């Protein structure tokens, strides 16, 4: 059903897959995600739809190997079939012509910000895109992002490529220089999204973040992805994944994100030992 058509290693430990999924490709919009299972014993994990080709019936997912599930997924090859793929889930990004917008992608968040950036530009926005990673090797999808945006800025934590520093520092500079930024999208690791929201807050610019919560079903059934937004409990899977970053209860979100950390580590270690045999 869901055959891997193209597999590319786009950075150390970062893989891009094009997967056959005509129904999902037909419906997918920027901002939405899929739930993936590698095999029958696998976990259900959410991954943002990095791109879709309605004609060819493909969806693209990009992931970094961080645990057992992503490690198993990284070992699958072209021609292999995913055990399960379901979507498109969550609400699409609200793409309108806002004027000037900034999109920020950190790490694999670049893959998530890519279709949003592209569609914002297609909708007539001037899109300033900022992408960043720890080091040069981890900057992904640079060419695609350059095409998708009006202006592309790059940072690396170690200064090995582009500007030295964090994407949030560059975001701060852009906001200081340009007075007409109407909206910001910031997608990446939780601390980065939180920091980006802190940067934009004094400017009163609405900042959309895409929360990468733990999920099981992804359709509003289990509630494991719940998060407090503006004092109200929301389900990331059906009410999100995008929320106004200024209203997210970040400490709660990050606590919940780490709930299974020890078990995940245990499971990944056991898996690596087993494979090392």
């Amino acid at each position, binding site marked *: 059903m869901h055959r891997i058509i193209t597999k590319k290693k786009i950075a150390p430990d970062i893989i891009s897959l094009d997967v056959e999924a005509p129904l999902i490709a037909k419906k997918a919009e920027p901002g939405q995600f899929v739930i993936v299972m590698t095999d029958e014993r696998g976990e259900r994990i959410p991954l943002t739809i990095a791109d879709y080709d309605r004609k060819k019936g493909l969806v693209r997912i990009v992931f970094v190997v961080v645990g057992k599930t992503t490690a198993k997924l990284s070992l699958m090859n072209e021609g292999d079939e995913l055990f399960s793929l379901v979507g498109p889930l969550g609400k699409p990004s609200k793409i309108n012509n806002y004027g000037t917008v900034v999109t920020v992608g950190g790490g694999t968040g670049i893959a998530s910000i890519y279709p949003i950036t592209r569609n914002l530009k297609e909708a007539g926005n001037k899109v300033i895109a900022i992408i960043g990673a720890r080091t040069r090797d981890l900057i992904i999808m640079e060419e695609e992002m350059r095409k998708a945006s009006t202006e592309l800025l790059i940072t690396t934590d170690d200064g090995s490529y582009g500007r030295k520093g964090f994407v949030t520092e560059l975001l701060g500079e852009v906001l200081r220089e340009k007075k007409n930024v109407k909206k910001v999208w910031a997608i990446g690791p939780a601390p980065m999204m939180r920091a980006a929201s802190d940067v934009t807050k004094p400017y009163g610019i609405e900042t959309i973040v895409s929360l990468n919560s733990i999920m099981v079903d992804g359709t509003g059934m289990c509630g*494991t992805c719940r998060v407090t937004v503006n004092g109200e*409990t929301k389900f990331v899977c059906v009410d999100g994944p995008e929320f106004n970053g200024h209203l997210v209860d970040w400490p709660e979100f990050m606590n919940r994100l780490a709930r*299974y950390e020890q*078990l995940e580590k245990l499971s990944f270690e056991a898996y690596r030992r087993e494979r090392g045999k």
Partner: protein
Amino acid sequence: MADMIPTPERMKRSQRPMPEQDPKKRVRNFDEVPLGYTAEDAIYEAQRCLQCDPPPCVEGCPAEIHIPQFIQEIVEENFASAYLDILKTNSLPAMCGRVCPQEEQCQRTCIYNKKGKPISIGRLERFVSDWARKQDTKEELPEIKKKGKLVAVVGSGPAGLTCAADLAKMGYEVTIFEALHKPGGVLTYGIPEFRLPKKIVEYEVDKIKELGVKLVTNFVVGLTKGVDELAMEFDAIFLANGAGAPQFMHIPGENFNDVYSANEFLTRSNLMRAYKFPEFDTPIKVGKKVVVIGAGNVSMDAARTALRLGAKEVHIVYRRTKEEAPARAEEIVHAEEEGIVFDFLTLPVKILGDEKGNVTGMECIEMRLGEPDESGRRKPLPIEGSNFVMQVDMVVNAIGTTANPIVARSATSVQTNKRGYFTVDEKTRATSREGIFAGGDITRGSATVISAIGDGKKAARAIDSYLSSGGSLRKTSLKKMKSS
């Protein structure tokens, strides 16, 4: 021969109990708790049946099982025929024999209630279906004449499976759409292995597939495709997507790390097999002292699962008393036997936690019963100043579920009520849109497997009469689209 046993003799017999796993042992495994009747037990119990005419038990069975007939077949030791008798009207007998609250249904009206305990119809149904599964008894169906009409069923829980099976037997081409990767709905994700082994669910689903029913998993109706789109492809639709959204109490602290909805806790354990972690990849956490909020069947399932996962102490808090508890009596007994502590007349008001999000306790208030409320049950009222803190490190919220709006949002002109449930004609399960029918929990809120099965049967009949009289949702929808 059984017929030889004189009535007074039969009536002297008391109900044959069903052997069960020892509570001390079973809390350490996920194997099924009741062990089932032996053939000897089943025959003995079946011989008690007085073969009433008309049989009051049948009236209490939404699955319309010919109860006295199948019991007589057991008496005559024709177990295969007994199974085939049940299968004529109920496609999920092994499941029903386990999770249907027979005490509220067929057994409630049994004549024996006047003097003693009713015939154990559920245990007999379970016995014959287990027997038949072991033999893989096949149903020989007459050549089904294909009707060339397509029906979509949304959701593969008990309502959807029943409706699909009944329609397939009538000659319709049925496709079931399931959002998860495995069929069964609540039978798969909700009810634990120790109450309903998953291989039984798989077996009965496979039987339904053998009738020609197509099952599409990983398809979220409302997102992958909407009801409106399916309406252009199918001649009729049956919506049976369940009431899957968990409810919370809206008290402070509900988003601390180790606060689970029962749906999450049970889905991880049952559907994802987290109780076999790390052999299966999905993790689950269980505290040392766990509290489950609510006293329905789901609460019992969650509490007993927590115990099996290694919790040292498990409490159930409920704001009313044991008498009002919605769980089956049998489930409460099972939970008590296993050492679950019940704290009745107790209402949680706040969950306490530390800055890392770990649960450190739950503040409750004691309740008393006042005058009866609109549900007829005495209304629980808080006793002021009675607040106290339970020392717990994990909370499971099992206060119920509600409608998930995803399906309804994609269904133009299909009316829902205030709570998001589809409004239907009680008899035909017809919604406000011609050609679309609905049943199970998405029409009434969380209820029982057997009521869902009943809805599935009614809907199948109504869909047959709709299609037989020339109706076609597909044609009407396409016409409407062209004209607009």
